[in-house]
């Protein structure tokens, strides 16, 4: 069955060419340092020289406003997640961005997070 606005269907698009251009042909690696929910913002003391790459500049501009997840950056910029991970990874290494690490999946931490999620949901919707 097909629904008209089904976004999940895989598409082969011409846009696929772009990511490879943006990332200088680098593999869209699965960089475990940056997950979908890694939180990113502009560094408080960024280097004086701005990146030359227009997509990096656009990403920096977006991140100047506050914290966003990698997934949100991809959504706002309309770029694939794999590309955004590479751009974020580069910009972090260059000192333009800083990140908050995603949660480690240790049980003890999970316990606290679940507690906070539950309390938050109940406070908001209960």
């Amino acid at each position: 069955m097909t629904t008209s606005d089904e976004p999940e269907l895989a598409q082969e698009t011409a846009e696929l060419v772009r990511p490879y251009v943006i990332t200088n042909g680098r593999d869209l690696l699965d960089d475990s340092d940056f997950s979908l929910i890694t939180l990113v913002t502009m560094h408080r003391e960024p280097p004086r020289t701005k990146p030359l790459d227009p997509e990096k500049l656009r990403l920096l501009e977006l991140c100047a406003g506050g914290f966003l997840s990698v997934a949100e950056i991809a959504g706002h910029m309309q770029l694939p997640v794999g590309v955004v991970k590479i751009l974020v990874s580069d910009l972090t290494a260059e000192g333009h961005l800083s990140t908050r690490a995603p949660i480690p999946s240790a049980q003890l931490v999970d316990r606290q997070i679940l507690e906070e999620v539950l309390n938050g949901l109940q406070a908001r919707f209960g």
Partner: protein
Amino acid sequence: MGSRLDLDDSVYLRSSVQTAAKILVVGHFAVGKTTFIGTMSEIPPLRTEEVMTQAGAGIDDPKGAPGKTTTTVAMDFGRLTLSEKLVLYLFGTPGQQRFVQVWEDLSRGALGALVLVDPERLEESFPVMDLVEHYGIPYTIAVNQFDGTPSHSLEEIREALDLLPETPVVNCDARDQRSSADSLIVLVRYLQSRLN
């Protein structure tokens, strides 16, 4: 050069937020994932794409080799700031077996999954349940009651889906915030119970 993104401050997280958590909202096409995420999200839901390679028929090597094709899969997601320090992201994605790379990314660090099912099309939920189980993601079931659907008891649905006795099954209307929040709360309580 890309145009400047004009975004107001509400798109950004509170600066006090330290931790991001993730829950998956999964199910087959048209089961209500996008609706659910739209109902719960504090931001207009966003969509991202993952670019991935897909092995051609008969190629088992996941690293792929010649013959692989590149496809993209879209997922939508929403955001809920749940405390000064914690933000929860809800990621919606369908369950095609071939989208393994996306699933690896999605499942990493996920607290759990809410599996949406349509009581009239239960068999279509099997592939996505297989995936969730394959990646070891704990899940609960939310039965999306569409209008005019003859009602099946939750017991019948549990049996048809061959669930473990401890797996919670609840009714849910993905268009209704209270109902959707309740099914998330059931999931979180279940996740807590598994740690004890």
